[in-house]
């Protein structure tokens, strides 16, 4: 019974949303908007669960795991500051403590993590482009040709531009399209499995 009702809800709402896509009427649009509003409402309530989970896990770390105590305290302290500094309407204005922490602490930290990507791209490319097999060698040569496009090489750049254009718009695009088509079919199959109740591993037990 614990599974019957969720499965019934999944089937009905799944079928309604599927058919809604093919019905452009005002009623159909209302259903779509209503379902999306529900999703937002559920999300708002769920954020409380998320915060509770974060606090519980972090407090447990601060109490019982000496190696992680420092990070746990910093997390709780940071969360408390952001909640209390951002609770008032004035906190959204430029120059407030909340906005200053956001602009001068959080954003630079995020930019730092993002910038690590440049180094990781280089190290991953080094491993990926090692000529260990025929296919890997082919990949290495292709990557080398594509990279040359970004370098001014005089007359060589002209024919290289055509070659790279061909690589990107013919074999590369063909492979991408094949993946996208497979993804589309996989998405529909997964949706059907869920709508028809065949795939139910995400549901709780009976």
């Amino acid at each position, binding site marked *: 019974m614990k599974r019957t009702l969720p499965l019934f809800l999944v089937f009905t709402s799944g079928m309604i949303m599927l058919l809604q896509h093919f019905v452009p009427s005002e009623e159909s649009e209302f259903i779509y908007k209503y379902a999306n509003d529900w999703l937002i409402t559920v999300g708002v309530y769920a954020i409380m669960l998320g915060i509770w989970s974060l606090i519980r896990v972090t407090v447990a770390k601060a109490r019982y795991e000496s190696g992680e105590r420092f990070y746990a305290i910093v997390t709780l302290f940071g969360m408390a500051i952001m909640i209390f500094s951002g609770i008032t309407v004035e906190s959204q204005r430029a120059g407030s403590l909340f906005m200053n922490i956001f602009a001068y602490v959080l954003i630079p930290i995020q930019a730092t993590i993002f910038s690590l990507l440049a180094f990781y*791209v280089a190290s*991953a490319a080094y491993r990926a482009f090692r000529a260990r097999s025929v296919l890997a060698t082919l990949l290495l040569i292709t990557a080398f040709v594509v990279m040359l496009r970004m370098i001014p090489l005089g007359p060589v750049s002209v024919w290289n531009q055509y070659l790279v254009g061909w690589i990107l718009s013919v074999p590369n695009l063909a492979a991408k399209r094949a993946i996208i088509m497979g993804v589309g079919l996989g998405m529909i199959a997964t949706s059907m499995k869920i709508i028809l109740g065949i795939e139910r591993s995400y549901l709780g037990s009976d």
Partner: protein
Amino acid sequence: MNRLKLILLILMLALWSGIFIGRVSAQEASPPDSASAVKPAPPINVTVVDNPNDNGHFLLIKWDPSPDEKRSTDKVIGYEIYRSDKKDGKYKKIGITAVGIYEYKDGSDIEMYGENPNPRYISIGSIYYYKLRSITESGATSDFTSPLGAAPKENWFHTGKTSYFIAILLYFAIVLYYIKVAKSGKKLYIRPLGGIEAIDNAIGRATEMGRPILFVLGTGTASDIATIAGYTILARVARKTAEYQIPVLVPVNDPVMMSVAQETVRTAYIEAGRPDLYDEKNIPFVTAMQFPYVAAVTGMMIREKTATNFYMGLFYAESLLLAETGTMTGAIQISGTDQTAQLPFFIAATDFTLIGEELYAASAYLSGEPLLMGPLKAQDFMKAILIILIISGVISLSFGWNIIADIFKVNIT
């Protein structure tokens, strides 16, 4: 002397009034170029119809160009569209188009902007009348066309999506057929996937090393289909980890995802007969932001020394940051995503990658349940149909036959 002054005054007044009248008449006689220009012909063959495939708040006005678009001087450069809710009522200009555009979609489904009515709003079933006129380079305008009216209608099926509605119905039928075949007990052959076969080995390695497994569901939302596919794989992986008694860590970036992931893992542990091993704290919500999430997960990899890392779901720029950190910690890594832009990063940095559709097939492979094999077989069958259609489309277009391309034309505007 006074008489002379009076005469002079009369003369001056006459002269002044003459100049004034002359100016006025000159203005009337030689207005700007627009009035002196030859009046252009209005647009022809105007039609007003209900705009197809919409919610009933739009009308479509179409016309053929004015013959004076091609005259040598003072050409027609555009068209003005006027609307009224009564045939003989007051018409209001609602739009203008340049030469080359011979249709205008009028209407709006928003009735009010705050407390002010939206002038573009059109209500379902009411008749609206339209008149058009041409406008030239000098600003001269033609006569109006005769008023034409139409009422917008609500549409109950989007005819522009017919071909893919049929394709979905066909796919549904094939899936149901293969489910029936699978239920009958017939063994269905499915091609082996390297990434799937590696999952068991990766879990075994973590067991031997006595270290936890990390399962990352990506940075999508709970309603993304790739995330849902991630849950189904998580369920199979969690069941095995429960059997082998090793923890599975699932840090998530969305509270809804956290609830679903917790329920998925809990169910898997119950099914494996080890509910005592389930620990909710292993599936925490860490943050909703992308790069702080990366920091939290990579920190977890380094501190917990995870033996195996799974990345299954929707990934963006964090894919390589996570996978490269995993490589540095020496973990076996299996990834799967439907994001074509992230696939090269995963292929370069992880040991096995489930490419696109393989992510959706993984759950069926791992469970081995015949019912789940049905849709998988249907997926392969549909792919074969697509390949045949693409090849026949290429051949037919090469010979100049548009028949296949026309059948699959989709108009979703």
